[in-house]
């Protein structure tokens, strides 16, 4: 077994016991990257030199007896997180020469936790999409099947983790961008509560929804990284003032008596294999003492309209700063998808249309929030498939402007409500593609959904199956 195949927990153990160094670990990751990147294209920028010097520093600290949560652990960071001195493009040509003069808060926290950053991962340009096909630097491939899509927008992050290029990846989700690629690539993807992790320094997609979070091999690793990322940031006024907690503490707590809600509409029109696997997963949890309850949530398809309007409106405003005066490249460098979103968003915010679109969408958003609040009076968590399909073929998103919204229909309602959700693999299709289910909890209930995911993972251990690449 190569070191790059380890989980964070295993690697931390090995580093602590001096079985190997962070430089060894980083070298193995770099070796893997060099070997498969030409096929996979998970990275926009690889920072080999910086990574090795961070690893060296981590080894010195380990030798000194220092201990940090991610000391010496090689990770990847999605290319929409500003990294001081390292090119940050959001996979758009508009920013192909942008080198930020500052670090995102998340990057700052990872650095302080001792993480080793191997590079910046590919994504749909500006995070607009669910395929990574809208990247201006070429699409990323799915490690399970190179003819398939990795999902998106954090497709590069998910692919870099499930192909063992890194031990973990940092992604961001607006609606589905962590959970959906994690599902298609067979990884654990956690979208925290909106406001739990700072957005400062994350190139904005839809500001009222964007939530940075980890993509990892295991649930425990996810909790470890969330511990590092979570917390109020005085540079982001929308972060929650709630005190942070140790998310690893309750992982193995019994789920006896836990009430799991299932809403019928979340199983409409999805692959039959996916329904079967999620149902099997529920049986596994039932066996551990959980109670499955049928509930009635709004049909997730209502969320598509709400999400599309709100997100496009915010996008049109957020992309206004790339006006050609700074950053080198002008507006002609925007891709088709960004242009479409700018036009649609501009339209819905225009005088005379605001009430019919934006305002209406905000009103329905409030209803969706209330709908979940009501549901969480009867159940502790909600479980549903993450995506209606397994990884689709490359090219599927082309000529389909609503591709992302349809691929993300099952994650959009919880994103709109700002709720935390986690994707975990619950089986494999006949074509040997991962199938994911999501566990959604009330606001700031990250520890609870991690607990449920962990109990399930311990029982099934699907994460041990790796793609043969």
């Amino acid at each position, binding site marked *: 077994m190569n070191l790059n195949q380890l989980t964070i927990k295993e690697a931390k153990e090995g580093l602590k016991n001096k079985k190997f160094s962070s430089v060894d670990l980083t070298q193995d990751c770099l070796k893997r990257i060099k070997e498969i990147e030409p096929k996979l294209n998970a990275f926009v920028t690889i920072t080999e030199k910086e990574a090795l010097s961070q690893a060296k520093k981590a080894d010195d600290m380990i030798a000194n007896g220092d201990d940090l949560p991610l000391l010496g652990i090689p990770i990847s960071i999605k290319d929409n997180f500003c990294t001081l001195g390292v090119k940050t493009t959001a996979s758009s040509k508009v920013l192909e020469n942008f080198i*930020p003069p500052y670090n995102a808060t998340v990057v700052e926290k990872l650095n302080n936790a001792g993480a080793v950053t191997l590079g910046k991962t590919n994504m749909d340009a500006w995070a607009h999409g669910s395929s990574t096909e809208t990247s201006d630097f070429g699409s990323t491939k799915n490690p399970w099947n190179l003819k398939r899509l990795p999902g998106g927008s954090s497709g590069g992050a998910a692919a870099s983790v499930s192909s063992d290029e890194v031990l973990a990846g940092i992604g961001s989700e607006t609606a589905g961008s962590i959970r959906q690629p994690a599902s298609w690539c067979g990884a654990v993807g956690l979208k925290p509560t909106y406001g739990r992790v700072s957005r400062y*320094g994350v190139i904005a997609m839809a500001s009222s929804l964007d939530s940075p979070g980890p993509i990892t091999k295991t649930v425990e690793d996810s909790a470890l990284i969330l511990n590092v990322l979570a917390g109020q940031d005085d540079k982001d*006024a*929308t972060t929650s003032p709630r005190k942070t907690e140790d998310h690893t503490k309750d992982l193995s707590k019994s789920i006896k008596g836990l009430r799991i809600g299932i809403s019928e509409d979340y199983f409409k029109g999805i692959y039959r294999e996916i329904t079967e696997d999620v149902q099997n997963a529920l049986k596994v949890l039932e066996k551990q003492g959980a109670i499955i309850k049928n509930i009635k949530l709004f049909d997730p398809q209502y969320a598509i309209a709400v999400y599309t309007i709100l997100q496009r409106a915010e996008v049109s405003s957020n*992309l206004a*700063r790339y006006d050609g*005066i700074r950053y080198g490249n002008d507006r002609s460098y925007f891709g088709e998808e960004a242009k479409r979103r700018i036009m649609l968003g501009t339209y819905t915010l*225009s005088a005379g249309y605001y009430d019919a679109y934006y305002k209406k969408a905000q009103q329905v958003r409030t209803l969706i929030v209330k709908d979940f609040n009501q549901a969480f009076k009867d159940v502790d968590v909600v479980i549903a498939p993450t995506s209606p399909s397994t990884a689709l073929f490359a090219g599927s998103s082309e000529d389909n402007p609503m591709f992302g919204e349809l691929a993300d229909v099952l994650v959009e309602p919880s994103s709109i409500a700002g709720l935390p959700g986690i994707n975990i693999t619950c089986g494999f299709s006949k074509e040997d593609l991962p199938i994911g289910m999501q566990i959604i909890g009330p606001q700031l209930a990250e520890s609870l959904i991690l607990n449920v995911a962990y109990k399930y993972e311990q029982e099934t251990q699907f994460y041990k199956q790796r793609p043969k690449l």
Partner: protein
Amino acid sequence: MNSNKYQPVIGLEVHVELKTKSKMFCSCKAEYFGQKPNINTCPVCLGLPGALPVPNKKAIEWCIMIGFALNCQVSNFSKFDRKNYFYPDLPKGYQISQYDEPFCINGSIKLSNNKSVGIRRVHMEEDTGKLIHQENSTLIDFNRSGVPLVEIVTEPDFESVEEVVEYLKKLQQIVRYLGVSDADMEKGNMRLEPNISLRENTTNTTNKQILPIYKVEVKNINSFRFVEKAIEYEIKRQSGILNQGKNPIQETRGWDENKQKTVSQRIKEEAQDYRYFPEPDIPPLRFINSQISNLKSQMPELPTDKLIRFQKEYQLSKYDAEILTREKETADYFEESVRIGKLQKVSPKQIANILINKKVDFKNILPAKLIKGIVFSIKIDFVDKSKLRKIIQNVLLKNQKAVNDYKNGKIQAIGFLIGKVKQHFPKGDTNQIKSTLEKHLKT
């Protein structure tokens, strides 16, 4: 022109720049006047990708205090909105402002003719960067980007230039009293935008409630004089059009000081759609009543109240009280002197007379010294002696002819020299200048 045929209908938008230490949404220094370009900037006020605004609490409090001073209602709920438009000095492509839920609404202010002018709203926003045009290029200085701005909008209640100017002076005095802005017109701390239209003059009161079907806005004026001139020009221009039986078009104009006229900048058909929507980066703000009342209790005495109190408490004429309360510094100095003078049986009127007639140098003559001077009838120098000396030396050096004339017996030449000194030292007491000059001329 038949000046009585039409009655002006004027409303005002005034931008006041607050003098907080830091900017509105980041911790950069808010100072930009005379600073090296782009020195007080950060990712937030440069609008870099990923940067987020965090509102300045002090600025919000000051905005609310301005609202209180203008008798506004302060809302328990408020929020920021994005005003989307393109301009090279606007790095985010939108300005963070307030749209439908400003901090303060429905205020009023009374003019000397007893008329009450309605204040529609007082809201908070951020300033833009500054464009510096060179021969073939334009440079951008972002030091001003994100400096807190308060916008004060009146109802279209003004009916004459005089009312407008009185209101503006009052407003300037109020923000200075509150200590929230220098309101220095030359530095651009206070910018004025009148909108002007005319209606037929009539005694019919219902007609008075109907607004003209057009309005002309004159943008970004930075002096009271120019506002006066712009309004006068517009009244003339619009009457001319109305006299021809036409209606002036709704448009935005600018004041051209060189041409002494307003010029069209943008007509209504090209009006911007700012696509306002709630700023998602800043959660809505909720104020509990105790926060609001706490702010209210921190309000200093305002000019109008002080004026009335000075007349009553110190038995001063309205004229004297008006001069003494014009600036807070003078009023404070006066009251401190009165407090000290009371023990020495010096009356407020005595003190007022000296302050009004002598133009005392507050920095160098402390109230105690002033009172001492009055009590012991000591001839005190009300001005800074060393400064006066320096000016005199300079004047003597530059006016050798007059000096020689004086020394040759033409003593009336001293009048010329006094005049020269006064040019540089208009505050100076003539007798004092004369005696100091004489001393210098004798050596």
